[in-house]
């Protein structure tokens, strides 16, 4: 086998894995898809049913009486916590990258960059434990009540400040987890921008900020979009940290940014034990359906970002 064939094989194996996983999930979750129908996505009711009663047949599937699965609250929790994280992480990450690339002398840049990158290397369970032990008491006792008092007039910022477990806490900890990703990528892209661009702008009398804002940053837009896609994927799928700080809300939608939530990934972990109690297996298959939906949402977010990127390209930076 020559090199070309070998690499082609490897590449197709990698591509094939995605197809295999999604197919497996779909096949395994199929009884749940049949049983739950569309209200799986539109209702807030995750109920295993009566575990002590005899199974009954519904829509051709064996299930426990009163079993019902609707995961709208999970979808909302996942998307909202990711949204909060991305909205915070992109400006923070780009700002940090600009600082590292433009303001720091090269000697210090290497050291500070190393620390930023090490942030990305911390296992997420450590973030979770730190969030649980340090962040939540601070947020729940000090910051959130203060925010309710001063920013309560903004929609979703008022109401009950909660205990510190919840949407905003998840968003903040997720932000910390994805900022290093964005910072490292954008910093590298900024540092490798041709010096000629900088010179060209400076020679026209542009200030440092103008050079950065209207010449250098547009040049790294592609890289930023790519890094944001990766970061979104990480935030959507984050499991352990979120499990420890989300409050594990069941069957209700968040009513403000402090509300407890659950995300799809952490819900699968937290509910697997009890789902295994279901002798009909429908609960586990419904969890598989949660996984399937999470997979499809990740793929969809990816796809949308790529379309946006393509659109941007057509607008402007089509290279030679």
């Amino acid at each position: 086998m020559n090199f070309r064939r070998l690499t082609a094989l490897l590449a197709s194996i990698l591509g094939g894995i995605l197809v295999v996983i999604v197919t497996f999930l779909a096949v395994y979750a199929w009884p749940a898809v049949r049983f739950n129908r569309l209200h799986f996505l539109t209702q807030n009711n995750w109920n295993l049913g009566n575990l002590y009663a005899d199974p009954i047949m519904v829509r051709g599937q064996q299930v426990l009486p009163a079993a019902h699965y609707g995961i709208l609250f999970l979808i909302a929790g996942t998307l909202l916590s990711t949204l909060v994280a991305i909205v915070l992480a992109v400006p923070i990450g780009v700002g940090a990258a600009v600082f590292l690339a433009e303001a720091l002398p090269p000697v210090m840049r290497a050291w500070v960059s190393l620390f930023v990158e090490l942030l990305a290397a911390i296992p997420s369970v450590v973030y979770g434990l730190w969030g649980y032990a340090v962040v939540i008491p601070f947020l729940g006792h000090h910051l959130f009540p203060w925010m309710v008092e001063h920013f309560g007039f903004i929609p979703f910022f008022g109401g009950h400040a909660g205990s510190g477990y919840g949407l905003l806490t998840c968003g903040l900890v997720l932000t910390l987890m994805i900022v290093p990703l964005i910072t490292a990528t954008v910093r590298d892209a900024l540092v490798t921008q041709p010096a000629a661009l900088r010179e060209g702008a400076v020679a026209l009398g542009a200030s440092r900020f103008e050079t950065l804002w209207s010449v250098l940053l547009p040049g790294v837009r592609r890289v930023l979009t790519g890094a944001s896609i990766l970061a979104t994927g990480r935030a959507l799928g984050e499991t352990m940290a979120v499990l420890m700080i989300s409050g594990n809300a069941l069957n209700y939608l968040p009513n403000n940014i402090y509300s407890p939530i659950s995300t799809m990934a952490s819900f699968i972990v937290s509910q697997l034990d009890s789902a295994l109690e279901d002798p009909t297996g429908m609960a586990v298959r419904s969890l598989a359906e949660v996984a399937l939906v999470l997979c499809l949402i990740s793929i969809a977010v990816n796809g949308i970002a790529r379309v946006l990127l393509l659109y941007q390209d057509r607008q402007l930076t089509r290279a030679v």
Partner: protein
Amino acid sequence: MGATSDAETICPTGKTISSEPQGPLPATAAKISVRHLNFFYSRRQVLYDIGLDIPEKKITALIGPSGCGKSTFLRTLNRMFETVPYTRVEGEVKLDGEDIFGMSVVDLRRRVGMVFQKSNPFPKSIFDNVAFGARVNGLKNRDKLREVVETSLRRAALWDEVKDSLRKSAYSLSGGQQQRLCIARALAVDPEVILLDEPCSALDPIATAKIEDLLFDLVGSCTIIIVTHNMQQAARVADQTGFFLLGRLIEFDKTEVMFKNPSRKETEDYISGRFG
């Protein structure tokens, strides 16, 4: 020769050389006058006691072998060297009699534009590239901007080629077009002086000829200083030529005199191809 000081050993002919006489300003108004200019990269001196007067609305060429300091000299004229750390300048440079080190750098660079060796369009549309300088200088009005862009592109002889594709990326242009775009971009802020640092070194003869024609059109309205490796180019376009060698200005005179009857042996050697 034997063991001698730095100043003497670096001169290939063996004798100590110094720049042109550096008397008081001449009666005819020079656009830029330079006196006793020394330039250092940290401790290393790269320009020695440069003195010359650049006449207004003429083309001045600077020639000399690589590393002789001509580009460095050009970059002192709009203070571009200040973006490089550990650089230091001594001496006087005056633009219309005003000390350039005393004026705001933004103001100076608006008055003294620059075009680089390798074309460096921004990752933006053709329109936005040309409008960049004007926008930086506070022009916001869309109609005015459009006017500035058209005028600049016309002056850079690029308008007819790009007028239907102003929204396209600047990277869609050919190398020669990109360089003319960079000239248009420099022209958009209406500079009094344009510095060109080997603008044609990456271009083919046809694109080079277009840029040289362009220089003749522009010189009616601004002062042009061009650094070139190409002596034929200097001979073709320049009204006067300065010859740099090892950080010193060896000779500065009318181009015909420089090429036909140079007064210094080093100039003659370089021009006749004996070294460099």
